[in-house]
């Protein structure tokens, strides 16, 4: 990774520290600054409220010309998070064709928070969960809350 990229990540970390969005905590290791661990609270009023989710942010070598890679390390029942051991996300800003180099990680974190409040059904990675969200909201909420209890407490 280039010196420029490192400088940029350091700067972003500084900005995140100065103004951490509510409900998250960032663990940063200067020895391994391309991998951040984020602890995110389920937003109040959402089905994930009361849960604590561990996320991993990996900065690729080409950062910031390529977007960071985000994955949920805590299992979450969500149309935009892959329902496997990877817990990967690939939408909006996180897509290479959408991401622009001036975009910042903090914008990614805000995007994830807003998706926990309202999933993006049109760009779902899990079509069956998206469908349930659309057709049978009660069942979706029950499942999502159930997973919070099981995995995110």
């Amino acid at each position, binding site marked *: 990774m280039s010196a*420029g*990229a490192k*400088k*940029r990540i350091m*700067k972003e970390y500084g900005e995140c520290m100065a103004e951490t969005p509510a409900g998250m905590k960032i663990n940063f290791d200067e020895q391994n600054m391309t991998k951040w661990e984020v602890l995110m609270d389920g937003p109040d009023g959402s089905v994930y409220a009361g849960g604590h989710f561990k996320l991993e942010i990996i900065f690729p070598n*080409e950062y*910031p*010309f*390529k977007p960071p890679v985000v994955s949920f390390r805590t299992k979450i029942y969500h149309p935009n998070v892959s329902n496997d051991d990877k817990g990967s996300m690939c939408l909006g800003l996180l897509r*290479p*064709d959408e991401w*622009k*180099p*001036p*975009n910042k990680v903090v914008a990614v974190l805000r995007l994830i928070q807003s998706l926990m409040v309202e999933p993006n059904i049109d760009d779902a990675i899990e079509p069956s969960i998206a469908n349930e969200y659309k057709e049978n909201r009660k069942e979706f909420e029950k499942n999502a809350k159930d997973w919070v209890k099981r995995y995110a407490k």
Partner: protein
Amino acid sequence: MDSDDDFNSSQASGDDFLDDQDSDLGLEDDSDFDMDQDDVGFESQDKDMGPRKQAYEVDFKVFDPQQIQGSQDRQIDEVSSILGQPPEATAILLRHLRWNKERLIDRYMDNQEEILESAGLGETAANNPPKISKVAGFVCDICCEDDPSLDTFAMKCGHRFCVECYRQYLYTKIKEEGEAARIRCPGDGCNRIVDSKSLDLLVAEELRDRYHELLTRTYVDDKDNLRWCPAPNCVYAVECGVKNKDLMQIVPTVHCECSHDFCFGCSLNDHQPAPCALVKMWLKKCEDDSETANWISANTKECPKCNSTIEKNGGCNHMTCRKCRHEFCWMCMGVWSEHGTSWYNCNRFEEKSGSEARDAQAKSRMSLERYLHYYNRYANHEQSAKLDKDIYLKTEKKMQQLQNTTGMSWIEVQYLDTASQALQQCRQTLKWTYAFAYYLARNNLTEIFEDNQKDLEMAVENLSEMFEKPVDQLQGLKVDMMDKTSYCTKRRVILLNDTAENLKLGNWEFNVKFS
């Protein structure tokens, strides 16, 4: 211009397919940017040069990379002079509207500013060429550098970044993401397209070639009447006027200069007589049912008489058991002697009477049997084509040895090559007749089709069988083999003409709806 009349009339004269469309590579006669004849590096497979076109053939033309680049440049120049925009801007506008020049001119005349804006060109780009500059107090929003000696760049939109970051951004887009015509400004949320002048200024020599290569690719990608030859490493593109909406009435097989035959509609290998949608559905079905059908295409079977194991090692379906000398058909396991007679029915699936299929289980068993009947034959021709080829290659080798010992000239074995190629082509056609037949609902035309299929199949088996003769006998069979080869080819033309004509007229009835 897209009316159905245009399409139907093509039956009378094949030219109409091309007359109604914007033939940008210069096929039309009245074009004022016609391609010079000298530019054409090779003879196109034009109807003027070959024999009269068959009903199943379509008009097409093959282009090499220089010709593609040339026609692209010509079109840019032409539109550039109409719009009064410089070539760089015109190229962006054309790419922006996917090389639809009529639409571009219309929209430009309609609202110049709007189209320029949406193409990322904003106010006239004619003046003020792009330039690299140093700006006091500048901080690069990508790398966070703020050195006052930093070279910076911005397009008209004003999103300024250091040149290094700009370059890196373009490098990532071009080299790694293969983008060219629609690279947007790196600025957050900015949709302005990076024009070629800016690119030339910023991008290193080695990347510039790649960029222009990608631009040329988008020219072909964007045009409905152009398609890259899908053969690996092939650099040719093919122009053909058949449109997507026509694909239920025509199967547009084209032949690339590299000798690859493919379908202009879907880029798959030649699949005449089956229309693209049928092919797609069939391949999906075969994939879904692959487990049930797998055992079928296995290469060994038991002799129906003595049960000893028999391996198929040539393409021919006429099997003779080594142990008991029983002769039978590999496909239907019936006695071979019955295959030459008029009641030979190996290709047709006999529907059982309705009384047998009253319950659901019986019905599903019957539908599986029906599928397997056709799949079996489809897979067999695919497999046999490979075996035919193997045996031909072996034969060719032996013939060469024979030539060396007997002093036969090279030209005398050419007929083997011709026969082998005809065999491959006919098997490819036969293979798809079975997918076609699977979806065919019976009507008064079905029987003619099945007869044609049977005749071609018999012709193919007869020719295929000759390859299994001992090599030292082959030279004596030359005339016979040439006759059988031309008979195969003739049967193929008859079958394809019949299916193509009726497809064009909408006479086939299918038992499913193709989407």
